[in-house]
Structure formats: C-alpha cells, structure tokens
C-alpha cells in the first residue's frame, strides 16, 4: 500500500479547518453598535430634572414619586421604568424606634408626629423597640430614661452602620453609670462631670458663623427654623380682642414654652389670635408668614407663624434668641469627652453670667449622629414638656435620622441610568439635598 496521498489530504483538511477558525476570529459577523438609546435616556432624565426645577415642582416630586408619575407620562413617550431617590436630608417619613412606654409614645406622636416644613409634610412615627433587638426598619433610635446600655453596644453599633442615628433623653444616677458604660463613653462620647451649681437657664451654644461643618450647625438650624405643629383642641367663645374674626366660637390651643401656656385662637386660614403676654386675652391677629413675640418675665421671645394649615392646625417656628427655663436636673452631671470645653455641646445650662456651665445636650458624630439630652422632666416624663422641649427633640431626631438614599427594588429593569442633581429650597429652612432620577429599559 502506498499511503503518500493520505497524508496530504489530512494536511489539507487541517489547513482548511485552521483557515475557517482564523477567519471566524478575525472577521466576526458585522454589527454596528451604538449607545444612542442610552444617551437619549440620559439626556431625557437631565431634561426632566431641569424642567421640573424650572417650573418649581422638583422639591415636591423629590419627596412624592406619585406626583412625578403623571409628569413623566406626559413627557416620556418611550416605555421606560422610572424611580427616584433622595439623600442628604431627612426623609418625608421617618420611623423612630423608641424604648418608650405606650404613654410616652402617644405624647411624642401627638406633639411631633408630623411637622410641616418647606411645604412638605414630614411624619415621624414612633415604634416600640428593645435595645437587644432594635427595630431594623427605622431611621433613628430614641432611648428614654436611664438604662445600662453597656450590654447593647454591639447592637447599637450594628444599627448605626447603615446611617441610623441615636438620641437619648437620659439622666444618670451616678458617675459610674456613665463612666463604666461603653455606649456612653465610646458612642455618645460623654463622661461624668464634677458637680456644678444648678443652672438658672439653658441656652444654645451658637455654631461658628459660616462653618457648616460645625457639628452644632444642623440641629441649631433645625431648632430655629423647623415649624412645630400646634393644634386647637377646645372650642371657646371668641376672646377679648377678637377683632375682625367673624365667628362667635373658635378653636383655642395652648402654645407652651418656658413652662408657660400662651393661648392661641385659630379664627380662619388668615387670622390667628395670639395671647402674647399670657394674660388670657388675644393681643393681636396674625396670618401665615407673620412674626410675633411671646413675653415671659419681661423678656420677649421671637417666633414666626409659618403656616395656618386649617382652622385646627397651625405651625410655629422658634426664632433666635431663645432660652429654656432650666431643664438640666440630673443628679449626675455629664460632660463631653475628652475635652470639657468641647464644641460638641449644643445646649448648656448657665448660672448668672454663665461662668459655670452644665451641658444639657451633647452631640457626637464619631460613629454616626448621636445626641445625649438631659431628661427635661422633673415630674415624670413627659411632663412638663412644652413646645420648646419638643422642638428640641424633633430637631435632634431629624438631625440623627438616616439621610442615605433608600434602596429601590428594580426587579424589572434590564438597563438603567441614574442622573443626580443637587437641589436646594429655602422657604422655612435652607435645605440642600441630592435628587437621583433613574430611567431604565424594562426589557
């Protein structure tokens, strides 16, 4: 047998296979791919954000996705899936996990369960929790009353990892109860302080002018700008000084500050009668946007009537300079660690001339946003709470609450693009935040 030809044919077949393979690699099937579809979606998202900003609806759409949808339906003809996120400011629905009693929870919801700021409603819901199993779907933790928190340090750290903050309203019975509790020393950054005289009044430590990185800046700003809600709760005859109010009987409520009640009668959406000196008669009529003063001990304290929401509800904000009647009654003083003169003191109690101070609110942000506040109640919490105390608690809770963007479930989006925009509003309070608009293809 002569097999010379067999080898040549095998070589030929191998060469052909090699050529085809090489060709397939070097010259794959031609397809011209562009990303114009992606680019047009990004342009569209940018146009949507800019247009909503120009027509003044971006802030509303940022916090209310259901309002955005009709707008998107009108301007986006493609079949796109949309979603929104906000970050850098407090959410419109804040859940506070609280180790409060039922009674305390009810008080908190009544006083600060809803605030109306920059034309948006912010609901603050309080849900019961224990410290060994902190309610995970919350934005902040509120600890009311003394408790040895040392065993829960890991739970609190884990809770704060996702951006949640903690506020505690606590008086400590002894120096050891502060100094031996690692939650207090490591997370809140506080320790015991030697005895100082009982303060006569409490005041804010003013943040450095123009320094927004000052830890006191945000809660200080919230206190002096966040409108606190006051509800009329008693139908009464129109008081002396009723003026132009046409109704013989109107709703009266009490605005409480510095442990004094000031009657406010809500006549209608434009007329609110206020007893500014606590003598029981209406001294003047105000409408939304007006400023007024309430006098205590001869000293006027400034306020602004931000909103008259209805004939039952109004919103009032504090204005500088406000002083609390002393609420720092703790038998054991505390101070920020390590420096007693720390800039982390938000509220301090003063004796005459403020030569000796006693911290009333201490902030810390080394782990996350946390605040210790002296227990303002001397008669069993929450009495004698006033709007001033509640405004302070609301300010601390909003400051401490989680401000990260909430994760959105995007189950039916194949490809999506997120467009970010920094927006700012300044109706009641300067508020800057990041708005993300996502547009994506569903298939």
């Amino acid at each position, binding site marked *: 047998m002569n097999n010379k030809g067999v080898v040549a044919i095998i070589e*030929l077949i191998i060469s052909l296979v090699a*050529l085809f393979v090489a060709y397939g690699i070097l*010259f794959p099937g031609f397809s*011209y791919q562009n990303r114009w579809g992606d680019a047009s979606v990004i342009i569209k998202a940018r*146009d*949507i954000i800019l*247009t909503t900003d*120009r027509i003044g609806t971006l802030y509303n759409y940022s916090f209310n996705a259901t309002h955005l949808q009709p707008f998107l339906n009108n301007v986006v003809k493609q079949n796109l899936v949309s979603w929104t996120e906000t970050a850098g400011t407090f959410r419109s629905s804040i859940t506070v996990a609280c180790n409060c009693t039922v009674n305390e929870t009810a008080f908190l919801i009544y006083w600060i369960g809803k605030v109306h700021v920059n034309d948006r409603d912010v609901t603050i819901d309080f849900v019961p929790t224990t410290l060994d199993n902190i309610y995970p779907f919350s934005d902040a933790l509120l600890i009311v009353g003394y408790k040895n928190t040392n065993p829960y340090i890991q739970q609190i750290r884990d809770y704060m990892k996702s951006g949640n903050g903690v506020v505690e309203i606590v008086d400590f019975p002894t120096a050891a109860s502060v100094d031996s509790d690692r939650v207090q020393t490591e997370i809140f950054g506080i320790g015991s302080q030697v005895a100082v005289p009982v303060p006569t009044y409490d005041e804010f430590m003013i943040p450095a002018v123009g320094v927004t990185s000052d830890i006191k800046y945000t809660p200080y700003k919230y206190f002096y700008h966040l409108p606190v809600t006051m509800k009329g709760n008693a139908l009464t005859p129109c008081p002396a000084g009723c003026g132009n109010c046409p109704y013989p009987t109107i709703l009266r409520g009490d605005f409480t500050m510095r442990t004094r009640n000031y009657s406010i009668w809500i006549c209608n959406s434009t007329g609110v009668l206020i007893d500014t000196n606590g003598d029981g008669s209406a001294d003047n009529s105000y409408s939304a946007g007006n400023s007024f003063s309430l006098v205590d001990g001869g000293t006027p304290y400034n306020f602004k009537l931000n909103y008259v929401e209805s004939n039952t509800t109004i919103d009032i904000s504090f204005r500088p300079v406000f002083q609390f009647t002393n609420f720092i009654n703790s038998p054991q003083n505390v101070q920020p660690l390590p420096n007693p003169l720390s800039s982390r003191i938000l509220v301090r109690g003063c004796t005459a001339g403020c030569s000796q101070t006693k911290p009333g609110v201490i902030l810390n942000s080394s782990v996350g946003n946390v605040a210790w506040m002296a227990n303002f109640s001397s008669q069993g919490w929450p009495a004698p709470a006033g709007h001033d105390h509640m405004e302070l608690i609301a300010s601390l809770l909003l400051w401490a609450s989680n401000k990260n963007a909430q994760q959105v479930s995007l189950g039916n989006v194949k490809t999506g693009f997120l467009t970010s925009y920094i927006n700012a509003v300044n109706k009641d309070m300067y508020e800057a935040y990041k708005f993300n608009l996502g547009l994506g293809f569903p298939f």
Partner: protein
Amino acid sequence: MKGQLSLDFYISILVFILFSMYIVLQLVNIIPTYSREVNVQALRSEAYQVSELLINDPGKPIDWYSGYADNQINRIGLSNHTIYVIQRAPGDYVLSNLTNVVSFAKITTLNSKCRIPGGYNRLKSWLGITDFQFILTLNDSSGNNLLTCLPPTIDARSTKISVDRIVSFSDNRYGVLSLQVW
C-alpha cells in the same frame, strides 16, 4: 514531470482565491452599512447640538425677536434671556445659566418667520445648518402646538433622526420640543 504543477498547488490556489473573494464580498457588504451608520451617528450628533442651541442659547442678538431685520440676526435660540439675568452688585448684571427655559415671544417669532416664503432656508442659515433638513415642533403639556417649522418638501424615504427635549416656559408650564433631521 518538470513543468507540471502538483494537485496540492491547484488546491491551494483554489482555497486562496475562494477566501480572497469571500473577504472582498464581506467588505463590499460592510462598507455601505458602516458608512450609513456613520452618517446617522453624525446626524444624531448634529440634531442634539441643534436642539441644545435652540433651548439653551438666547440667540445673537439675544432679543432677536424684537423688531430686528433678518440680515441683522446672526443666530437664533429660544432660551428665555429675560428671566435669567442676575444682579451681582448694583448695576452689575450677568446672565445666569438657567437652562431649559424657553421664551414664548421667541417661539412665536420663530414660528412666523418660518412660515413666510424662504423662511425655512433663512432659519437653516441662522442655525448654521448646511447639509441636512429638519422638522421642528414644540407642543405644550396640554398638547397645544406652539411651533411647527418644516421644509417645503419632505423626502418620505429618508431615515429620520428624532430628538425630543423637555422644556419649561416662563409661566411654569412645560412642553416638548421635537426635532427631526435627515
């Protein structure tokens, strides 16, 4: 056997010719597609640039709609220059970069200028368009047509590139500006 070519040689030549022809045929198919796609990409880019010019440029002069003769207008844009003047100091004004806000007065003027004979071509030159045609429409959020500008004849067979831009008006309404080019 000198002068005779082997069977291997014939087969090799045949394979070489077949592959060469295959590659040439592939290139003949690819080049027009590639060329067409490049042209479409260029058109898309031009369409976007024209849309950007229309909604974010006030034109030159910026009040070109207010009684200027056609030969005095260098460039047109619909951006509302009247509401984005900010004052840095008393007497010191500067244009802020308020994008996506268009002027009703400019829309109306552009609409009327496009409808007069020769207006479309004049509009093309004001927008710096030389080598493609366009259709421009602007509808408000209620569906009312505020602007339509199109050439005297439209080639129905050509591939048209569309760009939609969302714009706002000075009265806090909004609309969609659509630009088709080919």
